């Protein structure tokens, strides 16, 4: 029962009050931490009348609280809860404050806490039996909101408002929501016929398919079967067409040798088939909650609902031109970490439940980023928001699922919730929020219900680990980042013993590389000794004694290092903050010595100088940053002297901090900011020098990938910023500057492509020359080349898509504005507010959604 405990603080509205109409005022007062209201209330009324202690809060406060907390309490029967709220509302109809707030709050909840939408609809349906006027008020506002959001391209809000409207299908006149869905479809067709790579049309079809089930669940099933069939016959054409960009966002990257590489299925294609099979079984849609269905004992209420007045849905005008909106749109594929199990612990992809529950959870997760505690709570309590018996009991151990007798459900609510979060963590090209948000949701869920969630995470981790070799490399690194971060929140405990056999694998094996990378990441969040103590004996050697040294050795301390004396001299000059001339003298000396020894003089002096700066700043990052700041002119000169010298700067940093690559990466990032290094320097060093020296082996190192990836993100982020700015009406960025940035980015991607292609095809000189007959090693290196190549080709393609979209979106917005202006001119009575909104929106950024992080 602990899981059912209502927590107050976390959830804004907190827990609801007692069920139905029977309030125990005294108890409520003490139980609800509602002094917030008390203060406000006294303030507003100027203390004109002192309320007595046992007064219940006024109705508008109670309705608000109860609406916000709707369906959260599994002990409260739905029909009682919705009638309770509806009656409290209609009984206080004369309260103007309440009447106004009610509609607004319902519309707000629909887009802020979408799991609750069917229950809100239930309240409206009951209220309709008493005060039908309220429905007209609601529908009026709802339709205007849909129009505004369509204008803005806020497609998720459009979907969520339509979901509310769909749940009200039972009280709508005529065909209800169908004309709107058909109108949306005709836009989708227009878009798809003019452009095969269009993503807006795909998004529209997705919205239609996700709204339709709610329409069907909200009304008597056979009434709309024909309409639904007609609509689905149309969507079939678009939904079954594989999208051009789909290959790009595929999370799995199987090896060519894999016999049956499982292809992920596109989300809308799945939806279409799932709904088709629902249609064939008379739209049972057994997972959807129907709070408006009253138990048999309440015949009277049920017949009142049936005979309540119907309402016309005001026309929703969908503009001829629709915009993509602020979030970049991509086709989506379905991913689950609980596939291939002996007992199904999540809805199989053949059922509509799979998509409908996932969709509602994803909206919840992505909307509630403002409070991860609430997100986690709604996830842990997912069974409150779907039909009874959709899930197995909470916290049922996986091993027990097989004892459950059919037709009882074996779907574990924890697995369904965790799966949804992982699907975002592994979403390509990027999820809506920073990856760390999804980390934090899993952390909170695990804190909230450890006994239920932790085992589910464990099974997900095992699945991902097993499949690491065939996962897209970018996602595999995301998995590593999440895994180490997650462990850092839970005392670094993991059953490493399960994986000890893999220690024997080559460091180039993706699973071994995962272990090495994950441990490295753990150490970066903690310290070596701590992490070594969490590892079983066979893994301990992966954390060598050198890792325990906080400060690396200074190579010039040893006399047999070339330029040892000069190195020590420069270091002491730097420590003394000696004048530049004194350092110059030593550098001159190094350079002439180097010439005598027939080595590159600039490279030699750069290596000594940079190593000394690092040594002087070795105590903390602040120290090294200060040291760089003080010597940045000399570093700039050194870097500018030659490509080889510039590359040597990175070489010096990476080798000085080779044991703590996290520090090296940080330093290189700052050197890029100072333009001491260029992105191309990093690419060349990593993919040509470093990879070459290790005969490709270092392509398996997560931190080398991190370095390159961060550098690319920096470049693309910069381009996006410039493009977005230059698309604004009063742009200060001239086209030339913008085009220069774009050109720079393209040349970086070209350099990466060049370097990686030879690794990926096995044509790299270092690979051919070595010829040590180790074909397994060659195969692994080649595979790493392919994995890298795939990541950066995708990045390049996504940036090109972004650039193309930015141009198109600008045109679309112009067309949309013209249409609005035309409309405003032809109908002077058109609601000024809406037109104003649309026009204001034109000032907004084009494609501001940043997917570069």
């Amino acid at each position, binding site marked *: 029962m602990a899981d059912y405990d209502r927590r107050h603080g976390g959830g804004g509205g907190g827990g609801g009050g007692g069920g139905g109409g029977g309030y125990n005022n005294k108890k409520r007062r003490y139980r609800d931490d509602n002094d917030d209201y008390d203060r406000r209330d006294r303030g507003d009324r100027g203390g004109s009348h002192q309320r007595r202690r046992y007064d219940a809060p006024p109705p508008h406060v109670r309705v608000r609280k109860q609406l916000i907390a709707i369906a959260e309490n599994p002990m409260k029967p739905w029909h009682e809860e919705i009638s309770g709220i509806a009656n409290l509302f209609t009984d206080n109809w004369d309260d103007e404050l309440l009447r106004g707030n009610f509609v607004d709050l319902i519309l707000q909840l629909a887009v802020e806490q979408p799991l609750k939408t069917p229950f809100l609809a239930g309240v409206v349906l009951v209220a309709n039996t008493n005060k039908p006027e309220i429905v007209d008020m609601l529908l009026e506002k709802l339709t205007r909101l849909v129009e505004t959001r369509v204008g803005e391209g806020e497609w998720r809000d459009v979907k969520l408002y339509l979901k509310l409207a769909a749940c009200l299908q039972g009280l709508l006149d005529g065909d209800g929501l169908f004309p709107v869905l058909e109108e949306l479809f005709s836009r989708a067709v227009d878009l798809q016929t003019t452009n095969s790579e269009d993503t807006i049309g795909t998004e529209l079809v997705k919205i239609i398919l996700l709204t339709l089930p709610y329409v069907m669940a909200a009304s008597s099933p056979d009434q709309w079967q024909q309409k639904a069939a007609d609509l689905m016959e149309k969507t079939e054409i678009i939904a079954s067409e594989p999208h051009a960009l789909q290959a790009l966002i595929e999370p799995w990257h199987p090896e060519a040798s894999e016999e049956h590489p499982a292809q992920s299925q596109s989300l809308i294609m799945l939806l279409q088939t799932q709904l088709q099979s629902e249609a064939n079984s008379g739209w049972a849609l057994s997972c959807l909650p129907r709070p408006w269905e009253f138990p048999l004992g309440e015949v009277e209420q049920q017949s009142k609902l049936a005979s309540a007045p119907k309402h016309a849905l005001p026309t929703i005008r969908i503009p001829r031109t629709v915009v993509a909106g602020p979030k970049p749109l991509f086709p989506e594929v379905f991913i689950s970490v609980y596939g291939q199990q002996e007992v199904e612990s999540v809805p199989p992809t053949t059922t509509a439940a799979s998509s409908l529950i996932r969709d509602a959870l994803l909206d919840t997760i992505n909307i509630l980023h*403002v*409070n991860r505690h609430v997100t986690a709570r709604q996830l842990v309590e997912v069974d409150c928001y779907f039909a009874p018996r959709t899930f197995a009991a909470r916290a049922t151990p996986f091993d027990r699922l097989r004892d459950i007798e059919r037709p009882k459900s074996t779907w574990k609510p924890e697995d369904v919730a965790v799966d949804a979060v992982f699907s975002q963590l592994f979403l390509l090209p990027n999820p809506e929020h920073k990856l760390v948000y999804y980390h934090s949701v899993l952390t909170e869920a695990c804190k909230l219900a450890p006994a239920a969630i932790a085992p589910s995470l464990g099974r997900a981790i095992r699945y991902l680990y097993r499949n690491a070799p065939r996962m897209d490399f970018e996602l595999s690194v995301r998995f590593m980042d999440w895994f180490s971060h997650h462990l850092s*929140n839970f005392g670094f405990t993991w059953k490493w013993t399960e994986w000890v056999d893999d220690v024997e694998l080559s460091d180039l094996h993706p699973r071994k590389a995962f272990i090495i990378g994950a441990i490295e990441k753990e150490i*970066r969040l903690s310290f070596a000794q701590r992490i070594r103590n969490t590892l079983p004996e066979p893994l301990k050697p992966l954390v060598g004694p050198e890792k325990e040294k906080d400060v690396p050795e200074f190579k010039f301390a040893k006399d047999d290092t070339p330029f040892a004396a000069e190195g020590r001299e420069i270091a002491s000059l730097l420590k003394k903050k000696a004048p530049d001339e004194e350092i110059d003298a030593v550098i001159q000396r190094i350079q002439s010595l180097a010439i005598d020894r027939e080595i590159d003089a600039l490279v030699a002096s750069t290596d000594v100088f940079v190593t000394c700066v690092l040594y002087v700043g070795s105590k903390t990052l602040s120290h090294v940053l200060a040291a760089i700041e003080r010597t940045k002119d000399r570093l700039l000169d050194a870097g500018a002297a030659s490509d080889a010298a510039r590359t040597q700067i990175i070489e010096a940093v990476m080798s000085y901090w080779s044991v703590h690559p996290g520090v090296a990466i940080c330093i290189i990032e700052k050197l890029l900011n100072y333009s001491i290094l260029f992105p191309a320097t990093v690419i060349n060093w990593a993919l040509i020098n470093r990879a070459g020296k290790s005969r490709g082996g270092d392509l398996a190192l997560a931190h080398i990938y991190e370095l390159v990836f961060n550098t690319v993100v920096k470049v693309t982020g910069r381009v996006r910023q410039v493009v977005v700015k230059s698309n604004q009406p009063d742009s200060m960025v001239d086209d030339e500057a913008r085009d220069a940035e774009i050109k720079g980015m393209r040349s970086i991607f070209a350099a990466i492509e060049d370097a990686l292609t030879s690794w990926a095809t096995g044509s790299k000189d270092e690979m051919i020359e070595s010829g040590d007959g180790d074909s397994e090693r060659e195969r692994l290196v080649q595979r790493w080349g392919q994995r890298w190549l795939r990541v950066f080709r995708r990045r390049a393609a996504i940036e090109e898509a972004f650039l193309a979209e930015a141009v198109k979106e600008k045109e679309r917005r112009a067309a949309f504005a013209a249409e609005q202006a035309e409309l405003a001119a032809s109908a002077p009575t058109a609601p000024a507010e809406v037109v104003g909104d649309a026009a204001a929106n034109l000032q907004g950024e084009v494609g501001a959604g940043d997917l570069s992080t």
Partner: protein
Amino acid sequence: MRGPRSTVERLDKPSAYFNNSRNKRRRFDKDQRDGDDDTSMQAEQREEDDPLKNATTLYVGNLSFYTTEEQVYELFSKCGEIKRLVMGLDRFNKTPCGFCFVEYYTHQDALDCMKYIGGTKLDERIIRTDLDPGFEEGRQYGRGKSGGQVRDEYREDYDEGRGGLGRAIAEREAQEKRRGHIEEGRLR
């Protein structure tokens, strides 16, 4: 400008600590200014001159004394590139004393950090983040009597990551012990 009250409490708002000390100041200012009691105008002003409106800096508290800059970088970089990190130091020893300031390049990164990192663990301690109007020289030092943070003076629990007992309490206990020894000695 601002929309209706959210149905869910946001985690990227300044803490009660910041608001309280600010309101105290505000109240004080008002007393000084006298007269003008137009509350609506005050509310408007609050929007206008909110020092956290574009804040890019966070105060980070409840760190272990042993947590390094590198660890802070590692965690906080998950919300965006860090522009500057200032470790809180003991005024006298110049050793870390359990807090720091993290500055990002953008306000959004700072807000995201409030939402996604505040209240999670670093170095196995739940850390606290608070939006901050910006670091100023001098603020890196502890303001407690003995040089560290004030909260570490009178803390009664034993916190290994923060030097054991509160310093004032540890001092008092040591004194009592010494006195006890003497008294014991006398009895014998």
